[in-house]
């Protein structure tokens, strides 16, 4: 497969997926809305003391982003599997991993990226101290694509199951644990005045690995699930 062929295919796939998201833009806004509501629940449940909330803010924000990402996983392949376009992707001469990588990119850009953009606002809701915004944004910027890529592999395995929402969470959450530990841990370390850049490096290394390996693994999982 020549490089131009791959790039053309990527453009076509990106264009199609983005158009599909745009046609149902109400649905696309839901993950963001969900995360905002989860964040809003914590001050209501814990009381609105500034100091307590500020202390819990990194963990709460990370968990809210992670959960909203988890909810979007099922839609990653669902509609394509139902109308048969997934089978077409499987049979196409283009590498399946490449097409999946584009699909994950669209998914991340339409659900996690908007969330990332409003994170400063959410951080204000929980009184996160200003200097911690930098490590939080960095860890989320590296962590959310990592979560999307890991999730894409797991979601591919459950494609044959009709109501897979709960099972998908059970399968994905153990694999999400390290990302959460390093992502939220980095902000907590920064809050205690400890060096936090190490966790960022680890997340970046994980992302580099996942960028290469996860689409291949997801392609293999899709072939297993659909044959």
């Amino acid at each position, binding site marked *: 497969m020549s490089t131009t062929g791959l790039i053309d295919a990527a453009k076509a796939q990106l264009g199609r997926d983005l158009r599909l998201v745009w046609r149902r833009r109400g649905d696309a806004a839901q993950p963001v809305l969900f995360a905002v509501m989860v964040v809003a629940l914590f001050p209501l449940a814990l009381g609105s003391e500034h100091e307590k909330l500020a202390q819990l803010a990194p963990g709460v924000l990370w968990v809210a982003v992670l959960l909203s990402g988890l909810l979007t996983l099922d839609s990653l392949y669902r509609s394509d599997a139902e109308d048969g376009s997934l089978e077409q992707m499987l049979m196409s001469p283009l590498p399946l991993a490449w097409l999946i990588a584009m699909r994950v990119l669209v998914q991340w850009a339409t659900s996690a990226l908007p969330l990332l953009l409003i994170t400063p606002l959410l951080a204000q809701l929980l009184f996160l101290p200003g200097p911690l915004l930098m490590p939080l944004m960095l860890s989320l910027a590296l962590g959310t694509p990592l979560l999307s890529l890991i999730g894409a*592999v*797991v979601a591919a*395995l*459950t494609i*044959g*199951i009709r109501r*897979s929402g709960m*099972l998908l969470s*059970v*399968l994905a*959450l*153990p*694999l999400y*644990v*390290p990302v959460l530990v390093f992502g939220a841990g980095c902000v907590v370390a920064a809050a205690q005045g400890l060096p936090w850049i190490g966790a960022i490096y680890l997340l970046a290394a994980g992302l580099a690995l996942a960028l290469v390996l996860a689409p291949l*693994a997801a392609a*293999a*999982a899709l072939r*297993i*699930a659909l*044959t």
Partner: protein
Amino acid sequence: MNPVLLWFHRTGSPPNFDRYAARWAPWAFALAFLGFVIGIYGALFSVPADYQQGENFRILYIHVPSAWMSLFIFVVMAIQSFIALVWRIKICEILAMACAPIGAAFTVITLVTGSIWGEPTWGTWWTWDPRLTSELVLLFLYLGVMGLYGAIEDRRAAARAAGFLALLGLINIPIVHFSVQWWNTLHQGSTIRLLGPSKMDPSMMWPLIATTLASKAWFVGSLLQRARAMNLEQESGKDWARQAAENAP
């Protein structure tokens, strides 16, 4: 054909596997029983109390072998899944899936005995220490494999999908093993070494060897028994399976 390879292919065919498992499972259980009797007798009566922990430490003769088994079985499951995915050997799919509940049971035993030991020794049932947390994640991975296997209708497709998940979960194994070295943890580092001298006194060592061997034998017996049942279930339409069921006492 190479005799070893030939043996593998012969044992791998469902009717032969059934006979093989029926023959060896009782021996494995007998060996396990013997090992546990010797090991637990030694652990409770023969070994002296620890100079720091007193009588408490005796639970390690169950805790440590179970913890080893929880990791070992996951690796066995992943290897079987790999073979099943690459060479499509039916019996390996069954063996891999039969590993999951046994491994999950050993993981639960590890966590429970650990917290029973932790309460008097550390003063807490549970702590979010890297070793404990990664062992808990291991349990979730086992449960995920079992859940995925249960959720898919077609048995062979289910085994392949769950096997793939087992291969993904393999990432957690080095994290569990090295968690005591990589992070500062409450859980102690490794005392027993395969290579080089162990930090445990030889007089305390032999019951541990006995219970470790016993837990391995238990795993083999349990694996053969479970795999045999799953094999018979999947092959229930075949003549040999009917005959085996009729001949059964």
